[in-house]
Each structure stands twice: as structure tokens, then as C-alpha cells.
């Protein structure tokens, strides 16, 4: 027997999505604007859009760039962030650089990168890489800084060298924070993926979206927005599953009711 509260908690995401669609539908009907199709009109386009091999090829190209950009960014950012967190010298060298780059919208660099590297995969992957790197570096940095000194001392007393303490103690201890950064990075990868394709219009999901916009196919535009949004939800949910498996040891236990619940 599922309690009423559990049922509401389980159905909440579905109810929220449905609510959003209903508001959209009503707003669209009320405004009666050509560039604002109703939710139903947009959803109706999705099957034919996804049935088109052209769309799938574009999405595959987008996802490939996103995966490469994300993977390379994570592989470089985690060690850098951890080093910054444990070495004041490394931190004071990189911190000013990162603080300058952080607030710059990465897509704004796209035109210059295109001049240098062309409109192909390399330029777009580089922009994704930049977008993902900063939150991952920042969170790895904060995570490594917060590692209890005495945990490292305990490791040192057991005979772990400095390098091994970094890999065997700092990395796992900072993992919850690192993965929080990766989760932000994943969302940013999706955003920079679409915006890079919006500027370098050659292939990809962003390209389909903006081609449709140029041609006034507003139902396709909104259908693409729904698909990209759904993709984001799926990627995030998949990531969250992996994250939970990796850091089960650190998650708070929900065995007492939360305040405000």
C-alpha cells in the first residue's frame, strides 16, 4: 500500500511537466501568434522529426562532440582542480586566469575560434570543452580544499607517498564535490553544444533548430526545444544514477523526515 505522500512524491515530476504543457497550450491559444505554436502542434511534429534519418545523424554528430568535449574537459579539469586545492602555489597561479575566463560566455568565443579552427568539429568541441572545464575545475578545487588534513596525515602515517595520497585519499574524499561539478558541466555541455551549432551552422541539433527558425517552421523549432530538453533530463538522470552509485557513502540518510516536507 503506497501512502498518499509517496504517490505525490513519485508523480510530482510528471505533474510538473503536464502543468507546463497545459500552461503553454493555453497561453498559445490566448496569444494566437504564428511564432508561438501550441504545445499539441509542436508535439505532433516530434515523431516525423525523429523518424527522419537526417535528424538522427545530426543528433549523433552533436552528441559525439559533446561526449568528446565533456570527457577531455573532465580528464584535465579534475587533476588540475585537485592540485589547486592542495597546493597554494598552483592555486594562486591558476585562480586569476580562471576567474577571468569563468564569466565569459563560452559561445561568445565561438567566432574567434571559428576563425582559427574553422567551423568543423574541432572548434565546437573546443567550446564545449571550455564550457565544461570551469565548473569541474572549480568544484574539484573546492572539494580538494575541504579534505580533512588529518585524513591525509593518517594516510601519510600508513606510508602513502604524496602522489598516492592525492590519488587514494584526496580524489575519493573530494568525489562528491567533483561529481557535483561534473553534473553542472554536463548541463553546460548540452548548452554549449547547441549554441556552438547555432553560430557555426554546419550540422547538429542546433543547426536543425535554427534552420527551422529561418524557414518559419515554428512547430519544428518548439519540437526541437522539447527534444533537447528531454535529452537534458535523460542525460542528467543517467548521470545522477551513476553518481549515486559512486558516492553512496556520502549521501545524507533520509531516514528522518526532512523539515518542510
Amino acid at each position, binding site marked *: 500500500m503506497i501512502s498518499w505522500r509517496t504517490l505525490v512524491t513519485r508523480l510530482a515530476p510528471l505533474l510538473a511537466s503536464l502543468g507546463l504543457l497545459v500552461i503553454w497550450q493555453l497561453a498559445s491559444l490566448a496569444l494566437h501568434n504564428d511564432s508561438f505554436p501550441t504545445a499539441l502542434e509542436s508535439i505532433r511534429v516530434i515523431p516525423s522529426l525523429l523518424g527522419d534519418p537526417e535528424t538522427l545523424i545530426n543528433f549523433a554528430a552533436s552528441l559525439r562532440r559533446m561526449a568528446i568535449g565533456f570527457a577531455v574537459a573532465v580528464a584535465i579539469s579534475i587533476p588540475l582542480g585537485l592540485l589547486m586545492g592542495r597546493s597554494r602555489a598552483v592555486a594562486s597561479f591558476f585562480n586569476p586566469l580562471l576567474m577571468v575566463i569563468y564569466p565569459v560566455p563560452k559561445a561568445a568565443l565561438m567566432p574567434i575560434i571559428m576563425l582559427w579552427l574553422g567551423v568543423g568539429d574541432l572548434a565546437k568541441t573546443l567550446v564545449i570543452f571550455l564550457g565544461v572545464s570551469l565548473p569541474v575545475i572549480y568544484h574539484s578545487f573546492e572539494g580538494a580544499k575541504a579534505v*580533512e588534513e*588529518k*585524513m591525509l*596525515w*593518517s594516510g*601519510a*602515517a*600508513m*606510508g*602513502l607517498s604524496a602522489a598516492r595520497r592525492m590519488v587514494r*585519499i584526496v580524489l*575519493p*574524499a573530494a*568525489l562528491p564535490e567533483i561529481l557535483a561539478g561534473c553534473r553542472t558541466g554536463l548541463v553546460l555541455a548540452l548548452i554549449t553544444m547547441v549554441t556552438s551549432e547555432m553560430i557555426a551552422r554546419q550540422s547538429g541539433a542546433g543547426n536543425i533548430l535554427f534552420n527551422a527558425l529561418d524557414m518559419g517552421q515554428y512547430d519544428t523549432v518548439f519540437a526541437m526545444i522539447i527534444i533537447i530538453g528531454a535529452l537534458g533530463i535523460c542525460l542528467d538522470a543517467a548521470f545522477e544514477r551513476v553518481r549515486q552509485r559512486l*558516492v553512496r*557513502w*556520502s549521501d545524507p*540518510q533520509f531516514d528522518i523526515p526532512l523539515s518542510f516536507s
Partner: protein
Amino acid sequence: MPSRSDLEADAMAAAAPATAMIEVDRVSQIFQTSSRKDHLALSDISLSVADGAFVSILGPSGCGKSTLLYIVGGFVSPTQGTAKMKGKPIAGPGPDRGPVFQEFALFPWKSVLDNVMYGPRQQGVSHAEAEAQSRALIEMVGLKGFENFYPKELSGGMKQRVALARTLAYHPEVLLMDEPFGALDAHTRTRLQNDLLNIWERDRKTVLFVTHSVEEAVFLSDRVVMMTRSPGRIRQIIDIDLPRPRRRTELLLDPRYQKYVVDIERMFDDSNEIELP
């Protein structure tokens, strides 16, 4: 009064017995505070700890007693003076000196068993052997059945038991205990003191034990090193001449135990030191 004067204590330290496990020679420690002022944490400390002795360092908070322990552990290098272990200068941490911290410092991503196995595995002990030894140690500290628990699932007292087992697992010659029971409630603290004594009385490892509790120091130790408040100096070294094995309930009724506690507390009172926040 069963104590020696400062002068005699210094003389004793100078003429350290040949069996000294740890020797601290004229150690001073200066820290730079956040306002960039030099703070003298320890001033001219000389101390000798015999092999197999249980020695407590007793003092008010902020007297640098933990710093002294960290210097012996090799985690902090002294500004002046030297610390030696079995005649060799201490250059850094090593498995011959096992720390147990007030903050437990367990590896939260590892189960109880994996925490305890970590040291022996690091020393190259085979997995099977490390596991067998660790399981025995976990049972000895009273945590049989909790091998697969994560630290977050344990109470403070249980965490400190794991920390003790984890340190004992790699067979350090000296245990360095930094207010290990300071974060525990009175009841748990008493139980852990009893258990620590039982464990210690089996193999009589050398123990350097930092505490601010007079009763704890007298109950556990062969010798109590009293420190003054900032800058930390050795004020007096007191031999605790009480029979072992010690049982808490018997000791509490023992006039000798009571006299040690009262004498030491009086000495702290007499010093008219102002309470720091």
C-alpha cells in the same frame, strides 16, 4: 606531593634512559597567525618517553600539547630543536608512529573493514592476511558485525573504535593519541578509556596521549606531563604510581588516585591562568 620540580624534570630529560623510545630535545614551535604575528606555541620542550610507557600530556586548551604530538608524528616540523624516535631524528610521518585523532579522520568512502585493512595492505600484507587480522582487531574493539558499515552509519564512539583498530592494524611501535575521546559523551568516553586500557595492558605499546582531562590522564598513565598555557612549557612531570591492571571502579575509591587528581587540579588552579575563550 608526588611530583618533581621543573629543574629535576629537566635534569631527568637530559639524562634520558637508554631505552627511550621518543626523545624531544629543546623543541620550540612558532606559528604565524593570520595577522602575520609570530605566536610561540611551544617553548623549549624536552621530554623523554620510555619504551612501553603510557605518557599523557595534560594541559589547558591552546597550550600546544597537540602540536607537540604532531611534531613527534612528523606531521609538523619544529621551528627549533629535534625530536627523535629510537635515536633517529624524526623527518616525517611513518608507520612506526600511529596517530589517533579526536576527529577520527576515517576514510568515509571505505567500510569499517576496508578502513582497518588499509594500513596493512599499504605495508604489503596479503589481502587474506590483512583481512583476517583486521577482522580480529574489529572484534577486539567491540565492533563485530559492523565490518561492512560505512563510517557515516556509526556513532562517534564507534568511529573512534574503528580509528583505533585502523591504527593498531599496521603495528606502530608508538600510539599518538590526540584527545581521542574529547568529542565523545561522558558515558562513551568512560567505556573507551576502559577498553583502551584493556587493549594496552595486553601488549604495552608506547603511548603518547594528549588530553585536557585530569581524571583521564591519571587513570590511564604511568606518567603525566603537565603543561602551562601559551607558550606551552613543561610545568611538571608526575609519575602515577598506581597498580595495574587498573579498574575504574576500584580506582575511584582509591585515596591515592584521588590525591593525584586533586593535587594536579590544585596546581592548575594555583597558576592563576586566565581562561581564554
